[in-house]
């Protein structure tokens, strides 16, 4: 099926058993909201609300999540900033939720072109408090479908908000996609912590206010241990031609597919270059990178920003290897040729063409 990225997210969410969507219009992801309006209207258990604000939308997600059902909201960069309050609360209350960010140029209103300037916001928590969210980064229509399904599963498994970090191009572009079979929400296992009325059980509280400092500390450490476990269990990368690579490009999302095109070009010229494309931005796939750094001396981070994931690469490699950077912020989409030139320059400047 040839489908626009925004529609892929939406269809994948519905197939993941999501029957609750709340959103507020913002370009370039309105098609997602519109698709959900249609899809949920045709399902007897579907609920769609065009919320009065991003704040209202994320708080409606909180309500549904408290009731134990799968819920999703989506927006683009400025709208995601507004949702951060709710994301902090979801994290504190350990509520599952899926939030899709179609990144655009920023800061401020910026523009509506594809950009990757929200990496810090997404991977460092984004709102107030000591927390993390899982951040998934699809690089194709198919991955948009697969990672949306995974997002709902991770959200429920770890009771955590999951951000899918895409961009304007991913959401607007159409690519062929195959969807997994739909899940009937009724077939999902019951969650033992939900609010649905204290019938035949003690009453429950879902809250984030913990005035007692010891209890708050304990809760913070509990969250931390959960994040540690997630880091061990789900970090994920995609590798392309890395086996013999002397230089490895690290890029995610739209940048990763451009890098892939560039690598094909330089391979034709005999340059041994590969691609590591993180599919989880948090947890950052540090161990894959460390392992690769045992043989690879040079890494090129390519982002559609002035350098944000770059910091995670530096933190992972701790100065062991040469890290190069190339970035185009503001909604500029580099061409594969442009990146091929950058690769070429680095490759020969560092003398990687000489046999070891």
């Amino acid at each position: 099926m040839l489908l626009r990225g925004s529609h892929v997210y939406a269809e994948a969410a519905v197939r993941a058993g999501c029957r609750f969507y709340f959103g507020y219009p913002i370009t370039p992801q309105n098609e997602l909201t519109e698709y959900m309006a249609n899809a949920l209207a045709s399902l007897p258990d579907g609920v769609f609300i065009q919320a009065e604000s991003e704040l209202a939308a994320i708080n409606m997600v909180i309500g549904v999540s408290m009731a134990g059902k799968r819920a999703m909201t989506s927006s683009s960069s400025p709208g995601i900033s507004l949702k951060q309050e709710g994301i902090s609360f979801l994290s504190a209350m350990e509520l599952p939720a899926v939030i899709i960010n179609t990144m655009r140029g920023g800061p401020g209103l910026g523009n509506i072109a594809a950009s990757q300037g929200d990496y810090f916001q997404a991977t460092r928590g984004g709102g107030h408090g000591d927390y993390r969210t899982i951040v998934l980064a699809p690089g194709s229509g198919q991955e948009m479908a697969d990672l949306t399904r995974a997002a709902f599963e991770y959200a429920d498994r770890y009771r955590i908000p999951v951000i899918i970090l895409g961009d304007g191009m991913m959401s607007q572009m159409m690519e062929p996609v195959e969807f997994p079979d739909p899940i009937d929400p009724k077939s999902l296992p019951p969650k033992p912590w939900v609010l649905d009325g204290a019938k035949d059980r003690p009453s429950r509280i879902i809250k984030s206010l913990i005035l007692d400092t010891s209890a708050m500390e304990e809760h913070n450490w509990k969250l931390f241990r959960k994040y540690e476990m997630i880091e061990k269990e789900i970090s994920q990368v995609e590798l392309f031609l890395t086996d013999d690579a002397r230089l490895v490009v690290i890029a995610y999302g739209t940048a990763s597919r451009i890098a892939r095109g560039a690598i094909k070009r330089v391979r034709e010229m005999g340059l041994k270059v590969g691609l590591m494309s993180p599919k989880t931005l948090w947890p950052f796939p540090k161990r894959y990178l460390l392992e690769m750094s045992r043989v690879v001396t040079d890494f090129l981070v390519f982002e559609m920003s002035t350098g944000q994931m770059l910091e995670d690469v530096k933190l992972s490699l701790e100065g062991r290897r040469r890290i190069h950077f190339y970035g185009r912020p503001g909604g500029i989409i580099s061409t594969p040729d442009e990146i091929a030139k950058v690769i070429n320059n680095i490759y020969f400047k560092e003398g990687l063409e000489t046999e070891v």
Partner: protein
Amino acid sequence: MLIKTVFSGFGGQGVLMMGYILAVSAMRGGMQVTYLPSYGAEVRGGTANCTVSISDEDIASPVASSPDYVIAMNNPSLIRFEGQIKTKGTIFLNSDLIDIDPEREDIEVFKIPANTLAKKMGSERAMNMIMLGAFVSKTKITSIDSLMNGLTEVINTKSKKQVEINRKGLEMGAKYVLKGEWGCLREKLN
């Protein structure tokens, strides 16, 4: 093999539909495809364009900085995209609405009077299908058969009459090329 085509015109000319039908047709023909519409402020009412990439392997960037083909439906489209076309690339012009000639001499130029043909056919709105039929017939980027199948798949929810009109448009465009009736400004570059 990687071929990038830009369809450009003003809102209402059906340029996004042309690209979409081509993309679906090529996908059904077993190719890798991406379809990238222009979006945002410019798509609402003003000019519209989309880029279709077709390849036999994974497509890196869906953007075309130097397209192989451009289908220009109005003057602003020609002005905007003429400079971007690859050397030895081709531009297809709707000669009913474009009254200027491309300046570049390293590209092929084909002129199709799409509005006139559409009027002759009795449905002016099928003008985009005439362009698409002519384009595919000339470039053989996909087969006419798969184009017909793509058309049926894309507009299968609409009325049968709609499908028929569009089908006739595609056929008319394709025949126009086969008969060699079209205005060719520069063909067979050395």
